[in-house]
């Protein structure tokens, strides 16, 4: 980024004004909204990390994972067990959660990255459910059905507002790092594999190795989300590893737009707030999600954000053409 000329930097600021606005809004939010919505906002931040994790694989690499909850859950359980059973330091527990998720990503990824398309989806789903069943059935170690309660953050982060700001800082940092990753040569290599894996291979790039690295990064991001979740929610339950949890980032990315970096975050925010609101009226959330996904697939290809961007671009082009015509 150092080599960017001043003009480019200006246009970068002009392009990203909305981002600055959003961050300011996020900092101001706790002083204006109720504690209930602050919790929802925190949840949206955490789940957005899971959505980013999924979309690194889907949007950038073209591999649809139905098993991200395994990494999310295993990390959450690591943090919860270290804090409640071993009385481990909070910060070290978070780090341990992310590392455990990344190591699991290395093991599962080793098998999965050899596969493409539906086969990749099937194997990630199978591995995800396998980890779920292990956690669920291993009652002596994980508490099984009962889950783990009493996962408290340290004194400093005990109040909802403080934990929210902690989440916000971690979220912005993590998102920025991922943004740098996908806009690095590494990120472009991932994209080229999505576009044409054969040609990429002919360039002498080891697809399996690149995909494995991306898989581990994605697992670490899912792990980060899980590690933040356990002290946020004060508990962990096996449902955090169930396949429906893996489906949440899938839904978010599809709704928001998997081809855009911010698409899954947008999708996850819409989903989380809509979910919180709609639960007062109906329990049939899955049905609503199913309908929404079908609508997006059939009528808004590219997701909401992708569709909006497309429309804006069309309008701008029309305006430009019009201006040219008048000259």
């Amino acid at each position, binding site marked *: 980024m150092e080599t960017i000329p001043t003009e480019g930097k200006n246009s970068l600021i002009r392009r990203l004004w909305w981002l600055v606005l959003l961050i300011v809004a996020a900092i101001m939010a706790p002083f204006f909204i109720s504690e209930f919505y602050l919790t929802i906002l925190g949840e949206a931040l955490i789940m957005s990390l899971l959505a980013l994790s999924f979309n690194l694989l889907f949007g950038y690499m073209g591999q649809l994972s139905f098993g991200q909850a395994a990494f999310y859950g295993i990390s959450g359980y690591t943090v919860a067990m270290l804090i409640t059973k071993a009385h481990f330091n909070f910060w070290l527990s978070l780090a341990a959660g992310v590392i455990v998720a990344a190591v699991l990503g290395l093991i599962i990824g080793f098998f999965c990255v050899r*596969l493409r398309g539906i*086969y990749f989806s*099937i194997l990630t789903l*199978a591995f995800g459910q396998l980890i779920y*069943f292990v956690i669920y059935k291993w009652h002596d170690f994980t508490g099984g059905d009962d889950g783990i309660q009493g996962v408290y953050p340290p004194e400093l982060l005990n109040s909802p507002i403080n934990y929210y700001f902690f989440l916000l800082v971690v979220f912005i940092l993590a998102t920025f790092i991922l943004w740098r990753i996908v806009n690095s040569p590494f990120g472009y290599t991932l994209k080229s594999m999505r576009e044409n894996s054969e040609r990429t291979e002919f360039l002498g790039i080891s697809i399996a190795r690149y995909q494995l690295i991306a898989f581990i990064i994605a697992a670490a991001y899912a792990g980060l989300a899980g590690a933040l979740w356990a002290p946020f929610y004060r508990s962990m339950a096996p449902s955090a590893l169930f396949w429906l949890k893996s489906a949440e980032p899938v839904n978010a990315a599809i709704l928001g737009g998997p081809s855009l970096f911010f698409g899954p975050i947008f999708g996850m925010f819409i989903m989380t707030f809509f979910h919180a609101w709609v639960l007062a009226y109906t329990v049939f959330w899955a*049905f609503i999600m199913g309908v929404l*996904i*079908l609508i997006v*697939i059939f009528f808004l290809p590219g997701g909401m954000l992708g569709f909006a961007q497309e429309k804006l671009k069309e309008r701008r082009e029309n305006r430009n053409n019009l201006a040219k015509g008048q000259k």
Partner: protein
Amino acid sequence: MSFDVLFNQFMSGIARAALLFLVASGLSLTFGVLRVLNFAHGSLYMLGAFLTYSIWKILLLPSVGFYIATLLASLIMAGIGLLIEFFLLRRIYSRGWPEQLLATYAIILLITDIVKWGWGGEFLSIPRPEPFTGAVSLFGFPFPSYNFFIILLGLALVVFLWWLVYKTRLGDIIRAAASDREMVSALGIPIPWLFTWIFVLGAFIAGMSGAVSAPFGAIRLGMDVEIIIECFAVVVIGGMGSLPGTLLGSFIIGEVYSFGIMYKPELALAFIFIVMAIVLIIRPWGIFGRPER
């Protein structure tokens, strides 16, 4: 461990394999022709089981009620399959695999809540129907005679599908369409309708397998994804779209599960996934499948 224990476990594995074949054959047939992996196949199976329960309860016929319910539920599922193919899938054959996978995944979500809305979250059960209520003695061990019904039904389906695919004109078209869709279309065969009927047949088989699985265990939410993952294991091992592959895959998964449960019940599923992962790495297209492209 004595022979009779092992044999008994082997026979349980065969019964499980037969049920798996019932479900997976529909999935494999649909994929073989349409080239769409129907993620919602397990949901059609689950809905079939719930429908069978309700019809059986309304009928209140002690001896034949279950069989009538099974037939009616299968037909209803065929109708639902028709709607799904006609209104949803038909529009996305030209799109990429992610859209196809996601569309069928959306159907899982819809059916999950339809079942929750219609039947609630309780576990339901149907008693084993006449004349398969008892057990037969296999080397001194009681073996539920209903398992023989499942095994016979599985064998009947094997024979029927083999006859359909290899001995009829429709079968010629199916096999031709599986290898070169455009050529078949150029010969004047209406591919869209072929696809519809194959999907309807797949949905019928899914509904029927859900119906006959009902007296096996509990009818409950979540049985859809459990069975679909095992079916994925079956078709992945055997080879997607291959009838003999599905048969072999069902046998392997059924036996691995059965002996896995005997060895360590908590890890039965793990054994299945390990077998699947090994096959996927050595032969990603399965034992009887063909590599794509």
